[in-house]
């Protein structure tokens, strides 16, 4: 190994080493690795959907001649819906919206949560007290009830669902980030930095954020899981965009078209199993990451 000359190179070398150790410890957990593999597969399939499948078959006009609510057959591996569309194709395309909404909503909530958490821990005083009270208030509000209320009030659509989930899911992140920021701030290098004249911006960007981000990342992975469930729940209640196919809206259409009473299991199972796979994989990855970051959990 060549000896690096600049501090920047040194930093990157240290980060690379930490990353490799983390990966090794993540790899040792079978569940987490399986979750990651399933997740990568689903994401790849969702991204490649326009290349691998024929989008025109999603339009109702092109599928009029197909049998409606037909059980699985050689032509339609997972049967058809009430409009004669292939359930396999719908599930495949539904993954796109479900994943996208889940990720976007999580990004929003993690952003708000990290911001509130760091500000309330770093600045102290009345601002901190108010923010803490605010966080606690949102923490106890039943988030599903609030999300339902929000998505009724705003105009229906994918953006609204992202907003509704993002605006209700941030308090846990905020509490977590606040606690971690307080821990990081107690370390001597922060004091040294302050003594050398570092401002708030420098402290937060260079010292606090790097200390907090790994934890935020693990939390994000777990948060995506709840966001995906929340998305499907809100879409199922008919609060989403009816023209966008997601796993939740598929289940809504399945219920509305009487798939339950007709015993059309091929219409009910695929979207639900899709949700379970994605949520379980994110949960397993998140738990794996937590274990990497918190050695106390190891061996559990």
């Amino acid at each position, binding site marked *: 190994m060549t000896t690096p000359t600049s501090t920047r190179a040194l930093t990157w070398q240290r980060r690379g080493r930490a990353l490799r150790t983390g990966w090794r410890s993540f790899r040792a957990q079978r569940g987490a690795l399986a979750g990651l593999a399933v997740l990568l597969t689903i994401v790849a399939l969702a991204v490649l959907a326009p290349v691998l499948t024929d989008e025109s078959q999603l339009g109702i006009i092109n599928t009029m001649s197909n049998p409606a609510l037909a059980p699985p057959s050689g032509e339609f591996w997972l049967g058809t819906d009430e409009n004669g569309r292939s359930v396999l194709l719908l599930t495949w395309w539904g993954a796109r919206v479900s994943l996208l909404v889940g990720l976007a909503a999580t990004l929003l909530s993690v952003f708000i949560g990290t911001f509130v958490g760091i500000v309330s821990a770093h600045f102290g005083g009345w601002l901190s007290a108010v923010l803490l009270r605010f966080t606690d208030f949102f923490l106890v509000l*039943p988030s599903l009830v*609030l999300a339902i209320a929000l998505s009724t*009030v705003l105009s229906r659509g994918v953006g609204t669902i992202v907003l509704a989930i993002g605006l209700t899911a941030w308090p846990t992140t905020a509490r977590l980030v606040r606690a971690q920021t307080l821990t990081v701030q107690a370390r001597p290098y922060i004091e040294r930095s302050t003594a050398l004249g570092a401002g708030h911006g420098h402290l937060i960007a260079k010292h606090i954020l790097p200390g907090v981000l790994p934890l935020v990342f693990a939390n994000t992975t777990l948060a995506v899981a709840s966001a995906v469930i929340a998305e499907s*729940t809100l879409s199922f*209640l008919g609060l989403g965009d009816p023209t966008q196919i997601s796993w939740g809206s598929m289940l809504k259409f399945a219920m509305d078209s009487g798939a*339950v009473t007709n015993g059309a299991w091929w219409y009910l199972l695929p979207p639900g199993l899709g*949700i379970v796979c994605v949520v379980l994989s994110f949960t397993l990855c998140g738990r794996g990451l937590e274990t990497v970051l918190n050695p106390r959990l190891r061996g559990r």
Partner: protein
Amino acid sequence: MSDLLTPGDQLTEEAGEEQRPARGGLARYLASKLAGALTSLLLVVLLGFFLFRMLPGDPVQTMTAGREVTAEQIAELRERLGLSDPLWRQFLDYLGALLQGDFGDSFRYGRPVGDIILERLGPTILLAGTATVLAILLGLWLGVRSAWRHGSRFDRTATGVALTLWSVPTFWLGLIVLMVFAVGVGPLPGLFPTGGIRSIDPPPGLLPQILDVAHHLVLPCLTMVAVIFAQYQMVMRSSLLEEMGSDYLTTARAKGLREDLVRRRHAVPNALLPSVTLIFLHLGLVVSGAIMVETVFSWPGLGYLMVNALEYPDLPLMQGTFIVLAGTVIVMNVLADVVYRFLDPRVRAA
């Protein structure tokens, strides 16, 4: 369920909060908690009021849809509903009425919202209560067993099943349960009713009627238990694991106690503490967690009422259910704090 927190994380927050040295007695502690809860309640009312005012669509138009009405009638209706007053005035009126237990009249049913909510409260408590009790018993039992033999096949299976059920959307599980047990699949006939709380023509006599309701309760209750037991199991498991290496367990074993006595008398009581706090914290959330189960099984409870109110849209009813659902959580949180104080001698002494 998205509504419930990841097992454990709220708990650590609470524990951190509690470990602060108390500056004053129990009375002072309770007073500060109560003041906090009252502020939260006021915020809920404020949020409920202004949030639902932003709803698209005019309530008067919805109410008179499909009927011949004159402009005067519309104006009169607006006046009667207080919709023509300025917003702050409406809020103050609303708050004043609320303090007297008056939630306003439902647009849809034309009856006081408070009465409708009270009617629907019973079924929700029946469903959520039964499900919670069963879920707690099942979760704690599984948690203790898997922690005591952690790493065993039983532990791995139980934890795997819990994590999987945790990842299942409530409403989807409800749909599957509905299809398999109420409609019937293949040779299996429909064993249970598809929805509602009682048959259309209930059998005469009290006992048959109770059995009728119980028959309707089975599927929604089962669905709810399946979704919520996992969190109790995981918390019980991890808090018992914390205790596993403790010295007092070694002492108990050295005294020659049988293994299950060590577990029952020494380990479990100590490990139960975080679980009890969690149970109380979740009691409030359970009511709103019932929303999806009630919707799928058309169970005439609060959650179903709220979803129906959204579709209409019935503004006072939505406000009412929102305030009641959120209020339950706040009240239960105060209870959880108090219970925690009484249960943990260390906190009590502080």
